[in-house]
């Protein structure tokens, strides 16, 4: 069966060109970049060339890019690192209610264990944080604001440039989790007044196990990993040179095809959204439409059925998707993001996220649009909620 992989917000296929770039650094050019011998220098040069490439893609200087083990680590280093570093100036930080757990749980940890106060900013129906609300929430003892560049579930692109400008004016640091946007939405840390930015290779057709943290020159987050002082002392641990070379190659490929690829994804995304809303009754879109939505993200609510069932039935038909349902998460709580945009629990249980990638095609989208009404119909035929809605004349 031809599988349509529609879960590119979770992870992506490593582009074969990325794998090709990485391979020599696993089998031949495997030196430790900290060593002064020829193989060490070779690895160091590859590492620094990769750093320059990636820095260039986000408008940063190479020395402002720190490589880490994943996006989660980058978020932890930014938030814990800066909050702890600046704790004498204040113990208040601000994050949004729709942050990825890498930010949300880190803020919770600081609140619970280290005596910080956290303001969790609400979002509107489409998932937007209000820049004015950020302005209002900033206090004398606020040191850091963290609002994600785009939401991993519903695809809302937050007004980070406006929020960054406010933070700069008010003299507080601004961190953004750009794990979903690198390679898909333009990023310029200067123009956007971003002080810290987290990203990850495996969301852009690079390898798993490599993240980056942009740290504006002059900032010194307290390190989480202590050791040999790698990465300017901010992240000890032998650099994953092959992974970092792969990350740089992935960023290059995304940059080189940026315009046509994002336009292609947007077109497929809109065809998919419109097709579902027209072809499956009692469905709705979560998150905004148009340019304020991630180009590859569609997030749909499907009434009267539960998301994990839908996911597994679609899986059996050859579609890999994701859901905000509690029943597929480890903790049985429905998605915090979906509740934050005002969905009821039972609505949050019935959602499906489709995220496109470099190998997604129009034919796959068409096939999905053909299969979805049938699969939804099968599950609604089983659903007592659907029968009750019918009895009430709702459907």
């Amino acid at each position, binding site marked *: 069966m031809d599988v349509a992989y529609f879960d590119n917000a979770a992870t992506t296929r490593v582009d074969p060109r990325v794998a090709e770039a990485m391979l020599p650094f696993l089998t031949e050019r495997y030196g430790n970049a900290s060593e002064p011998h020829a193989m060490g220098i070779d690895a160091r040069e590859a590492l620094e060339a990769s750093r320059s490439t990636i820095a260039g893609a986000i408008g940063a200087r190479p020395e402002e890019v720190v490589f880490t083990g994943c996006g989660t680590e980058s978020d932890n280093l930014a938030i814990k690192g800066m909050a702890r570093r600046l704790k004498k100036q204040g113990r208040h930080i601000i994050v949004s209610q729709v942050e990825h757990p890498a930010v949300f749980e880190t803020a919770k940890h600081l609140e619970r264990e280290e005596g910080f106060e956290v303001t969790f900013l609400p979002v509107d129906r489409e998932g937007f944080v209000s820049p004015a609300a950020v302005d209002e929430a900033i206090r004398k003892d606020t040191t850091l604001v963290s609002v994600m560049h785009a939401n991993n579930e519903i695809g809302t692109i937050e007004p980070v440039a406006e929020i960054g400008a406010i933070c700069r004016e008010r003299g507080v640091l601004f961190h953004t989790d750009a794990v979903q946007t690198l390679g898909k939405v333009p990023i310029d840390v200067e123009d956007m007044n971003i002080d810290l930015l987290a990203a990850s290779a495996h969301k852009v057709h690079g390898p798993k196990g490599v993240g980056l943290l942009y740290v504006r020159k002059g900032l010194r987050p307290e390190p989480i990993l202590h050791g040999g002082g790698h990465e300017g002392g901010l992240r000890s641990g032998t650099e994953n040179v092959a992974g970092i070379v792969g990350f740089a190659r992935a960023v290059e490929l995304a940059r080189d095809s940026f315009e046509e690829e994002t336009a292609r994804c947007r077109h497929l995304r809109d065809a998919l959204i419109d097709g579902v809303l027209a072809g499956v009754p009692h469905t709705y879109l979560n998150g905004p439409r148009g340019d304020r939505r991630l180009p590859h993200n569609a997030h749909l609510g499907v009434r*009267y*059925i*539960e998301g*994990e*069932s839908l996911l*597994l*039935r679609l899986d*059996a038909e050859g579609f890999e998707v994701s859901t905000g*349902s*509690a*029943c*597929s998460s*480890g*903790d*049985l*709580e*429905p998605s915090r993001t979906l*509740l934050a945009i005002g969905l*009821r*629990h*039972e609505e949050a*249980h019935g959602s499906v996220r489709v995220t496109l990638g470099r190998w997604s095609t129009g034919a796959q989208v068409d096939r999905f649009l053909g299969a979805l009404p049938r699969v939804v119909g099968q599950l609604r*035929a*089983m*659903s*007592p*909620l*659907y*029968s009750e809605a019918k009895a009430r004349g709702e459907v």
Partner: protein
Amino acid sequence: MYSEKVKQHFMNPHNMGEMEGADGVGVVGNPVCGDVMKIFIKVRDGRIADISFQTFGCAAAIATSSMITDMARGRTIEEALKITRGDVADALDGLPKIKMHCSNLAADGLRAAIEDYQKRQRGEVSPGGTSADPCAACAAHATGECDSPTQHGH
């Protein structure tokens, strides 16, 4: 994560659908928790002559519903009442630990249907069936204050 048996019952559930003229209907679960199960029975000579289900929920909820209809069909009321959640999970070659409480409601659903049947026999009215809602007591859940997901199964 799911056994082959669970997958089979989820993909091709047995005895699915609303039943006309049921003698007893049991409703368990809560849409807020993500699982609602409705069990319909017909009783002849003290035995479950026919049984069907409707379920809103995850794969485990659908598979356990399907399985209990197979397990209860033809049994006497007394025998049917003895079927436990554990029996249903065992018959499916096990369920993921996290699903054992929240989605394994079928035995409760069957019991609710039998109680509804018995009430009707005694002449007590029960429009829409008997509801034995394990989530109903947990009002904290709806306000997001349920902090014990493993215990309450939310």
